[in-house]
């Protein structure tokens, strides 16, 4: 059994996600792209949902997005959030494709400014030597 968490849960990369998290560590946001039909996917998939092909690679994206929806939590969703409250949990739509959604936190953004389609931009937060979280910020 894994040790109890005192920090936020850290992603444990697997063969599919390793390139994504490696890129994040270099402060690059990448999504998966299909060489056959150019469909973009997040999170990464085994097969392309555009054409069912399997020739997929990671492509860097702009990091610009719009706000799809959000919820503001005042109680910690896990122990590591205790000193980050209130926390804005958000789903953003990356500008590269309609419906290309990503779950994240909004930082440096006032809750009262939130609205659908608010422009937001990626912010990287290094949480350890080998892990970087992908956040977004509004009003840039």
């Amino acid at each position: 059994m894994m040790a109890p968490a005192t920090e936020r849960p850290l992603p444990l990369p697997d063969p599919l996600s390793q390139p994504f998290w490696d890129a994040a560590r270099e402060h690059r946001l990448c999504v998966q792209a299909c060489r056959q039909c150019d469909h973009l996917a997040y999170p990464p998939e085994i097969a392309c949902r555009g054409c069912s092909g399997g020739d997929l690679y990671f492509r860097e994206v702009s990091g610009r997005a719009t706000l799809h929806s959000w919820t503001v939590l005042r109680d910690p969703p896990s122990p590591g959030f205790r000193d980050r409250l209130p926390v804005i949990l958000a789903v953003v739509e990356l500008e590269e494709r309609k419906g290309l959604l990503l779950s994240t936190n909004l930082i440096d953004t006032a809750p009262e400014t939130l609205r659908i389609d608010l422009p937001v931009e990626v912010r990287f937060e290094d949480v350890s030597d080998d892990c970087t979280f992908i956040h977004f910020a509004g009003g840039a």
Partner: protein
Amino acid sequence: MWANSGKVAVAGVGYSPLERRSAQSLAALTVQACDAALADAGLGRHDLDGVATSPAMPRYGGKKGVDEGIDIVTPWYLSDLFGISGHVAWTGSTNGMVTQSLIDGALAIAAGLCRHVIVYRALHVPDGRYVNFDTAHAVGGDQYLAPYGFNMPPAWAAIALRRYFELYGYERADFARYIADNRANAQLNPNAFWRGKPITADDYLNSRMIADPMSILDCDIPVDGCCALILTSTERARDLRQRPALLTGFAAGTRHGAGGTPMNMDDMWEGARETAGRLWTATGLSPADIDTAQLYDGFSPLVLTWLEGMGFCEQGEGLAFLREGHGSLTGRLPINTGGGALGEGRLHGMTQLAEAVMQVTDRAGERQVSGAHHALATISNGLAKSTAFIFSRDG
């Protein structure tokens, strides 16, 4: 239309007590519910030759309980407990929703493989918080969610409900009447966990926020307990103790969704519409034929997904429909007449199925929808693993 439409029936319904934390084991509760369903049908354990469930504990994060009889009850264990292992023709265990097991069981009856199938769902509330991501690492799909606090389904549902509010100009006050009326339905349901505890619209508006705009009253309460249904052929059911509820048809959802968030309302609507199309094709019916709708409500926004996805309302108009009381017990389309999962407790769709059966067999007591001929039951969130059923009155 489904070739076996109306040829398979539910002949019995049984419940264990539904309690927050029962002093009894899950095995004991399961046996009680299954014996109750058999007694309701006028059958005994020895009559069963098919057993099906989805036994998984749906806890998110943390340690998933896997102990037989405590956390889960598999069909093999129940067969053994019942002493019927010797003559069971078929058992089924479907991961995902138990309602897939109901489809499997109905097909086993229709195929002549089994005479009497029991479909049950037993759920156990784990120690500590049900949703508590208490591990240091997030693996698989969790790695894209848990680091950001999306480690609990109410936060996923909040994303859907907030977007719905923003797109169509609603607020929580618009949901208050439906939520309070739904709890009133539970007062008329002897099985409901929340029986004896009515709420007002103000109680809803002042309830504890879990993930704004999802409050504690927008989430079903996890319970220890079990609900069971007995399936048999309509022909045999007519000789049993209760009037049969005929399975007119069913459909299952397949839409995966765009990913990136587990509950994206746009994908859920699309999935519900696809499921609806299959259901109307399988049954030859349309929304206008439905007398009461049991719409899955593990989270309140799912009622909107199904109300609109099944075609009862245009997209975005479902909450206005509920606000006007059209979904209440005396409304145009009585919804979740037994209180749904919000009123009865978390049984992963069994509530919807059991109530549909009770309504078309005139057994719903004070909450009976007069003359209900066709009852719809929809389960899950519209995406893959969702199911929909129509039960109909015999004759």
